[in-house]
């Protein structure tokens, strides 16, 4: 896709939240291919989007294939679109665009009943006036199943969940954990093909959560239904899932098994989200093969693989599209803001501004063709960014000159915002250019707390010395807070030797455990 097309598409993009520092780069650039899923895939979502009435997009291009008997966990912070996604699977929300296949059948237009799914809600959603027995039997009654069959199934499920002696109670006579088990029972009894669970353990206390986690996993092993589980707790995701989907702001960040996600996080967000305590992140620079972390007297130097070096150019080339997409989006937003300002100015000054703007435009170079090299494209983008910045400056000075007129402050603020954004983008472009050309580029370097070895100062091995600021005792291990490479970080160590704050320690780091991420795109470099 040429830059011109990309620019146009960026201009048409649905407005989302204002630009954040970390890029909202889409996972896949292509948009419009939808083939029917493969045979062993039971649940499939292809390019699913969700846009609400007020033009707020909650889910962007969600793709997921779930095989039978898998336990998939959608995990992410609040507002990342996981509940929306699961509700779309359930049929409680309309799918704005994209396809949903359940059991090989196209399921976008099926009602929840026809999809043969069972759902467990965060607030249990038990029918308050019915007994536990009736609650569990309700779904079967609605499907006109015979009485004795219902009875058998309900009692079976009750036994599995140890609810047999509560069958006659009403929900308000049950504790939270029991209510959740009834909700699970309601799902099991139906022998549905897919189980959907929307943060079922969030309303329980910590201890109960731990035991219920194990119960759900056991249940999954016993019954073996395909399960989609939504949570914001990464511990639940790690312990229960066979496949994890990490979401942020409506976009999928990474899909993989818990081990993959833990050991090879695809971007900075996944790295810091998964794992408790969070991964420690430093700023670093990469030049050739050398990575330098920290300044002053404590500096970490290590070398990356040759592979990384050679792959680096490839990596930056592959990610160029994404970065440019964002840059052009930013430019088009700036253009719009400037146009709006120009429209609102009074006639006299408007003419002046317009002529200045058109002068800037006329000096613009031709957009690069399809076959242009990355450097040329970067150069073109750089020029365009600078031109856009000039336009903003012109507009700002014009607004400054004009006397009071309505909306002046609002327009000025808008243009200042986009101007700042343009500045950010320019910075990132420079960094990216540096990365691409092999020059010095900025990195984010990460190391998990568990992957550092803490010893005494007398240890003969090579390491970094530091002083403990806070030592948190958990029982069998410590979380030590100390300063390293200019930042306060956390490390975990065994509690065999007691630690107190102020104690001097030595940290031994194995550079093979270090994760390296590009600062601009936040993606992992490996």
């Amino acid at each position, binding site marked *: 896709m040429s830059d011109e097309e990309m620019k146009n598409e960026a201009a048409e993009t649905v407005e989302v939240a204002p630009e954040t520092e970390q890029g909202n780069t889409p996972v896949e650039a292509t948009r419009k291919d939808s083939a029917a899923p493969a045979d062993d895939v039971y649940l499939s979502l292809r390019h699913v989007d969700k846009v609400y009435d007020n033009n707020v997009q909650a889910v962007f291009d969600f793709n997921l294939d779930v095989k039978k008997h898998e336990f998939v966990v959608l995990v992410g912070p609040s507002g990342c679109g996981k509940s929306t996604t699961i509700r779309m699977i359930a*049929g*409680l929300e309309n799918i704005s665009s994209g396809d949903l296949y359940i059991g090989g059948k196209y399921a976008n237009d099926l009602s*929840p009943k026809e999809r043969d799914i069972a759902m467990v*809600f*965060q607030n249990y*959603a038990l*029918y*308050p006036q019915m007994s536990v027995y009736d609650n569990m039997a*309700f779904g079967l009654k*609605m499907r006109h199943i015979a009485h004795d069959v219902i009875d058998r199934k309900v009692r079976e499920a009750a036994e599995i969940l140890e609810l047999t002696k509560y069958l006659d109670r009403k929900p308000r006579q049950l504790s939270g954990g029991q209510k959740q088990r009834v909700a699970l029972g309601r799902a099991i009894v139906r022998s549905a093909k897919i189980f959907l669970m929307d943060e079922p353990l969030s309303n329980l206390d910590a201890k109960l959560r731990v035991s219920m986690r194990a119960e759900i996993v056991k249940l999954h092993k016993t019954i073996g239904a395909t399960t989609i589980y939504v949570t914001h707790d990464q511990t639940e995701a790690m312990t229960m899932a066979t496949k994890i989907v990490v979401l942020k702001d409506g976009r999928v960040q990474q899909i993989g098994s818990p081990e993959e996600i833990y050991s090879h996080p695809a971007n900075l967000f996944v790295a810091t989200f998964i794992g408790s305590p969070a991964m420690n992140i430093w700023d670093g620079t990469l030049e050739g093969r050398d990575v330098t972390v920290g300044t002053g007297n404590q500096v970490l130097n290590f070398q990356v693989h040759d592979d990384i070096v050679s792959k680096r150019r490839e990596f930056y080339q592959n990610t160029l599209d994404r970065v440019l997409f964002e840059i052009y989006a930013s430019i088009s937003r700036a253009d719009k803001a400037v146009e709006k300002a120009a429209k609102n100015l009074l006639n006299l000054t408007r003419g002046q501004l317009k002529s200045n703007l058109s002068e800037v435009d006329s000096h613009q170079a031709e957009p690069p063709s399809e076959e242009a090299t990355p450097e040329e494209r970067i150069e073109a983008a750089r020029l365009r960014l600078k031109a856009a910045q000039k336009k903003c400056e012109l507009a700002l000075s014009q607004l400054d000159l004009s006397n009071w007129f309505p909306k002046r402050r609002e327009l000025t603020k808008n243009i200042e915002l986009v101007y700042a954004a343009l500045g950010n983008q320019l910075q990132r472009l420079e960094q990216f250019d540096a990365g691409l050309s092999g020059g010095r580029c900025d990195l984010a370097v990460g190391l998990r707390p568990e992957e550092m070895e803490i010893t005494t100062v007398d240890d003969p091995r090579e390491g970094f010395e530091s002083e403990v600021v806070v030592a948190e005792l958990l029982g069998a291990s410590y979380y030590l807070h100390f300063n390293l490479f200019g930042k306060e970080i956390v490390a975990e160590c065994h509690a065999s030797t007691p630690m107190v704050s102020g104690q001097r320690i030595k940290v031994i780091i194995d550079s093979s455990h270090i994760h390296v991420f590009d600062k601009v795109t936040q993606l992992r470099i490996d």
Partner: protein
Amino acid sequence: MDNTADVTREGEGERLTRYGEFLKRAKSKLPRMHLSLKGDGGKHRQPYFKIIRTEYSREETLWGWIFVLPCVILGAIFVLGPIVISLYYAFTDANLLRLDEAQWVGFENFKRVFEDSTVGLALTNTLTFVVEVVPLQLFTALGLALLVNKITHGNTFLRWAFFVPVMLSLAITSMLWMNLLNDSDGLINALILACGGIPVNWMTDEVITLQAIIFISAWQGAGYQMMIFISALKNVDHSLYEASEIDGAGSWNRFVHVTLPAIRPTFSFVLITMLISAFRIVTQPMIMTQGGPNNHTMTMSYYIYLQGTQYRDIGYSSAIALIFTFVMAAVSLTLRRLFEGKKD
């Protein structure tokens, strides 16, 4: 739990002690009369007195009475008083213009009640009215509430439109309908004629008149209950609807198993209040038909009023009122028992 925080707890950190000190100082500056609910936390007990094993704080009781006394006195004079006096009159031959010459006649009034054919008719009419208007109005209100809840466009207009009849006084709507239902030149009959039908004697047929009044009452009152139901419906937990949708319940099943149980308390409240006000109906018959074609829209309240203030027979009307109260109480209590029996 103690309300007083001047008991400092050692070892809970500096902040708590300081706060406790501050409170103690502040409390000492207050006037001596303080409204502590449970006393000083064990320092010394407030004076109390006992009635059948339950302790009552003397001070609390006094304050309680101070607040409640005006209301109790007014209630006694204007509510209990008339009831007692009416009870007395029911056993006398009191006449409105000669109340001081009331003579005791024992159960003569009550015997007369049972022999009076008009009372029988009035009671039948009233019960018919109640039995027909309550379900009609209730389910109209519920239906309208469900409808209005679902429609998003023009929602405010619909709510207002349905509520307007409630804002009009009963007297005005009675006259309005009297005009509409006039035998010869009312709008309704004109429409029927235009469609080729036979005009109906709305206000002069013995059976139809009561039905017309029932319909008009339901039409007027439904808007009010509709508002109550709308707010009750809004409080139903959405996830229950979703769960039932996933369980495979269609709209009817969702209504029966999720909506109805959720608005059950509101429903029974509305039912009881509607019932009681339906028993008291008097304005519509009084204005529209004055008791109707041959007493066929005479209601108990109207008859009591007629006998008491128009015919000046206070003794007799008190007797009728007493018997009617029993009937109303019986019906209401039975219904409440029925409804509460289901709750367990």
